[in-house]
């Protein structure tokens, strides 16, 4: 039921229907078809790649850092073993401090 009280906080169905009719642009199906046709079809592939880019870069950085650490570790160990072998096989007398330094260096 329509009331003419502007303070009424309920929607007025008559006014609402008139406004709806007044502002109805019509042919919504054609409008929807136009919008759908312009939505990116293949864009989603790029967007999918883009969404993976950030975690992908982070994973690559972690992998590179791990690999770098491993390579450095291997080189250090190889060098320590080489030094130890050199000390052990040396004809020269070795002092205990020098031997300890080589052993501790290899353990680190």
């Amino acid at each position, binding site marked *: 039921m329509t009331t003419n009280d502007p*303070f009424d906080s309920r929607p007025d169905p008559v006014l609402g229907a008139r406004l709806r009719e007044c502002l109805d642009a019509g042919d919504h199906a054609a*409008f929807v078809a136009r919008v759908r046709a312009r939505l990116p079809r293949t864009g989603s592939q790029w967007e999918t790649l883009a969404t993976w880019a950030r975690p992908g870069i982070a994973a690559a950085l972690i992998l590179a850092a791990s690999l770098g650490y491993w390579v450095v570790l291997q080189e250090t160990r190889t060098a320590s073993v080489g030094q130890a072998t050199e000390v052990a096989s040396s004809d020269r007398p070795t002092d205990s401090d020098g031997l300890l330094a080589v052993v501790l260096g290899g353990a680190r």
Partner: protein
Amino acid sequence: MTEGELIEKARGGDTEAFGALVEAHAEFVRRLTRAVLHDRDDADDAAQDAFFSAWRSRERFDPARPFKPWLGQIAINAARDLNRRRVIRRTEAIPDSLPGPGSTPAVRAEQADLRKRLNAALAELPERQRLAVVLFEVDGYAHAEIGIVLGIPEGTARSEVFHARRKLRATLGEQKEEA
């Protein structure tokens, strides 16, 4: 599929799901852009811009909040942007819709006249009042929700609805008295 599921899929880049959302909300978005822009073609351009803008910013949408008011804000902004960018072609009178079957020439003329008056009355309202009364009367939004969509306090939204419906009812009342 529920709207929540469609939104979730659309946020993940599913254009079909977004298309379904366009279909569900086309009438609402076009009505809002039409309330800002009187020209029908401009309003449709703005409505399209609004949907593409929503598509581009879909990942920023907070699924915990309702979708329709978010879309409404985008639609209003798109219409305002277009209003600023373009010289509006002209304030086109909203065309009479087709008469219902069986209506007499007298009834059709009366309906056409009413639409013309209501259109003129709407055009005279400030933009915010137009939007407020459309959201209230046609879409059934509460004053608080209107405030959120329009970015104004609830009390202001209530006042805008009050003034707009008073003016529009006066137009409808004139029509009744003449009849």
